[in-house]
């Protein structure tokens, strides 16, 4: 199960809440796979993708608002994740019947959340902290 230990916290409430919400869905997927109820993944994954896209939009709006200098790079990174999410939806659709799809989905999803989303967000953690000190974030 995914747990957002301190090194995965942005120390910015709204972003941490959104990361936690994504982690909660990931854990539901893991539970469904482990609990022999992988058919649920078919409905959980679209939920995850929707929440992820909402998070990307909120985050980009925040970064633009506070003048983060690498915002374009981060937007580009978000767009590059669409292909990965498409693949995970495919795995989720097959998870009910296919062991390989279940294994792949579980690993991809955990890596995607912890590495592609949260760890990459750490790039601007210090910037947000600075802006928060001056009341700009």
């Amino acid at each position, binding site marked *: 199960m*995914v*747990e957002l*230990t*301190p*090194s*995965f916290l942005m120390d910015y409430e709204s972003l941490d809440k959104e990361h936690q919400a994504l982690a909660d869905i990931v854990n539901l997927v893991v539970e469904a796979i482990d609990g022999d109820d992988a058919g649920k993944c078919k409905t959980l994954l679209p939920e995850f993708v929707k929440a992820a896209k909402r998070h990307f939009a909120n985050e980009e709006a925040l970064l633009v608002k506070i003048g983060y200098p690498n915002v374009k790079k981060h937007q*580009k990174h978000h*767009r*590059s994740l669409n*292909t*990965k999410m498409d*693949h995970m939806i495919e795995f989720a659709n097959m998870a009910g019947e296919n062991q390989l799809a279940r294994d792949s989905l579980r*690993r*991809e999803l*955990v*890596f995607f959340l*912890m*590495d*592609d989303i*949260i*760890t*990459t967000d*750490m*790039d601007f*953690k*210090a910037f947000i902290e600075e802006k928060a000190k001056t009341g700009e974030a």
Partner: protein
Amino acid sequence: MKGLHVIGVSHAYGDTQVLNSVSMMIPAGELVCLLGPSGSGKTTLLRLAAGLERLQHGQILINDQVVADAHMHVPPEGRGIGLMFQDYALFPHLSIIENVTFGLFGQPKDKARRHAMEMLDQVGMTAHAENHPHMLSGGQQQRVALARALAPEPNLLLLDEPFSGLDTNMRGQIREETQSVLKASGVATVMVTHDPEEAMFMADWIKILGNNGSILQSGRPHEIYYHPQHEFVAKLFGLMNRFVGVVKDGYVEIPIGKVGAKGMDDGRRVEVLVRPEGVLLESNGANGAPLDVVSTHLLGHDNIVRVRLTADNVAPEERNLYVRIHHTFEPELSKRITADVEADYAFIFPLDGAGDVAEASYASTPQPEAAK
């Protein structure tokens, strides 16, 4: 979370910045390859994770424990890591079993020996336990190095170009065995390599480091190969055929067909990179671009064919192409041969460098006027 967590790591040697805000998470049980050219900082990143260099900026955690940041530095022996290098680094004066038990200090001798023999068994080297390293081949020494690295049950295994000292045949076999042992161990593994094929074979995930010391792209091998996000990443995997064109009605016309440029504005000047396996040759093809075969080079499992496009309106720098064919290729002189593009192997990048790679899609059969 168990594994390696690198957060915002930057590092410089004097005035030379070698790592530029690198972040990554490698969960336990996953094997991640750092792939990049010499000087891209991949070995520096490995050395920082190992504690062989002091971290200048950022933070490194292993299994949720901070092992390095700007103020503290846990030495390598305190990090619970296993290391494996290209030159095996076995102690020449110790026997194989002594080499493997070396890292098991603190354990009763019998227990350490039993555990070391189990590790040697996993890599098929028990018969050589009492030999010395100089009596073993390179491949055997590498197996012992793997057993030694895994014997203390590390939290993290770091491999630096581990197979580059082996000949081609042995390399294939040893990397397959290594992958299998690593999967069984469940340890988080980081492997540094400059060999794209090796990274594709070994890795669960690949992280591409560019010359500016930052991660350019991260993904499954399939994703990196078929959906490169940067020209640099596309070119890492060898020969490329390059064309220049302009986006029109969502497509780019190149001499061997049309490639879809979804998400790119009309009028944008772009380069189109096509892998050699993305150029399809056809005998007596009706619509493809006509060509002459210049030479064929048999590489064993496939052929590299050099061709020259013959249509008058092809720019001189776009006439000569490389084609990869996965079977014997013997052109029949009596037949007209033409080339067509396979969009899965074609990648479009803006020439001003400001935008994303377009997702190439094939525009059905190219129109004759587009192909000429």
